[in-house]
């Protein structure tokens, strides 16, 4: 597989469309165990990302870097630094490289490391990490398969429902956070589902 500049732009535009469609759903999930603004913040930020993607980009790294800086300055809350860091790390990892399956795995690994460090969090705390970590696992272990990438992300997202939150605002709900999907895990699932879609179409 190969992820081109055009693919990357298409990926981010589709992610923006998905966030825009699911804005109310994400905010509703966040109202249950957070502060109810995840959908609005993500949709507002990625709208700006999508609007900034019409320029010329030499390589995938440049698209991701532009995305990172826009996300950091437009999303706010906890999602801004976390997604911003993820895109920045991915951008740094693929600088000067063509993005094939191995590079993509390295990018996701770098992003996951960045998210963990920025959020001072680990797997199993009912956060976006619980989607990113299994996705990395599948990218590292097996030959690239778009459908499996999407499926892994979806199953991982579903698993956050039964977890108890120990990080972020949801942690104040303690065991009462069980029975609710983590909104950051859901938006991360959208991100990987759209990536799988774009790569799947290109293959």
């Amino acid at each position, binding site marked *: 597989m190969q992820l081109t500049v055009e693919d990357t732009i298409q990926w981010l535009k589709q992610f923006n469309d998905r966030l825009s469609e699911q804005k109310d759903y994400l*905010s509703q999930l966040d*109202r249950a165990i957070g*502060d*109810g*603004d995840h959908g*609005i*913040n993500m949709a507002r930020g990625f709208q700006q990302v999508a609007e900034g993607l019409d320029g010329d980009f030499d390589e995938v790294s440049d698209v991701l870097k532009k995305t990172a800086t826009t996300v*950091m*300055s*437009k*999303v*706010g*809350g*906890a*999602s*801004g*630094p*976390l997604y911003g860091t993820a895109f920045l790390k991915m951008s740094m990892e693929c600088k000067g490289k063509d993005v094939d399956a191995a590079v993509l795995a390295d990018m996701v690994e770098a992003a996951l490391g960045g998210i963990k460090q*920025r*959020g001072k969090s680990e797997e199993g705390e009912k956060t976006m990490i619980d989607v990113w970590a299994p996705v990395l696992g599948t990218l590292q272990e097996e030959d690239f398969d778009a459908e499996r990438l999407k499926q892994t992300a979806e199953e991982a997202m579903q698993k956050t429902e039964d977890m108890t939150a120990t*990080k*972020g*605002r949801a*942690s*104040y*709900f*303690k065991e*009462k956070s069980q029975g609710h999907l983590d909104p950051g895990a859901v938006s991360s699932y959208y991100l990987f589902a759209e990536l799988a879609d774009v790569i799947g179409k290109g293959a």
Partner: protein
Amino acid sequence: MKKLINQPEQIIDEMLDGIVSASPSSVRRLEDTTVLVRKDAPVDGKVALISGGGSGHEPAHAGYIGKGMLDGAVSGEVFTSPTPDQVLEAIKATDSGSGVLLVIKNYSGDVMNFDMAAELAEAEGIETAQVIVRDDIAVDDPENRRGVAGTIYVHKIAGAKAETGASLEEVQATAQKVIDNARTMGVALSPCIMPTSGEPGFELADDEIELGIGIHGEAGIEKRKQMTADEIAAELVERLLPEVDLADQDEVAVMVNGMGATPEMELHVFNRKVQDLLQEKGVKVYDTIVGNFMTSLEMAGCSLTLLKLDDELKELLDAPSHAAAFKK
């Protein structure tokens, strides 16, 4: 839902311009930002204090800008932390070369965004230090406690310390001393309505209150059937006192803070019982303030903060402040 607004998307922008209109001689807005600073910033030879966070807690934080308190305040969207680029603008505009203290409430978004701003400032050669306020005892784990109304005492006392010409390290140490000695707990009687969605931020039945609520309506300790002001006062004092760790001669400052929609009349009813209870328990009250200092839009309810004082904290608490929301 009736609100005194225009377009919900314009609330922050219009609020910030309104705050400047009310204090044009003391506060200015940095162009194209959500940052307000002291009109005379940067103040030569003085450590700068910056605070901020999501909007919806007014008068926090911009109301505390002024000589003797904050040099700058950064406003995010409603209940959403501001972004690092905005915080960086505040740091750059207020640093006189003496360094900048960031006063951060312990919410993951605030901590991450201010931390990133501090990294960006470091890259530009500006020295910063941070303190993280965690006064809300409703959360068991002390590391995970939220920063709530006790933040106002940090602004007041560390702000007064900075006016003495103290170093960044000294101002940070004083701010940390306030944090180590301030404890707060709140109660909600009714939820706030989010201006963008028009929906309540959380659910609370008509005959229920929530003890230990956070300033964005985060889950507290428990929901109870409605209680009287005296019963709530007793509950909060009972839970706070063991956390403050008072010796015989210690004195406290008391803050009764309205959450936004509770009339001052009721805050005074509540305060009367708080003072009675403290007296009964032999706690000496040095200073009391009653009002809306750290709100949650139109949430009804209040919080009670106790701050254990020493001689340094007393002197700095009594020092003058020109901030619009805390004149002294």
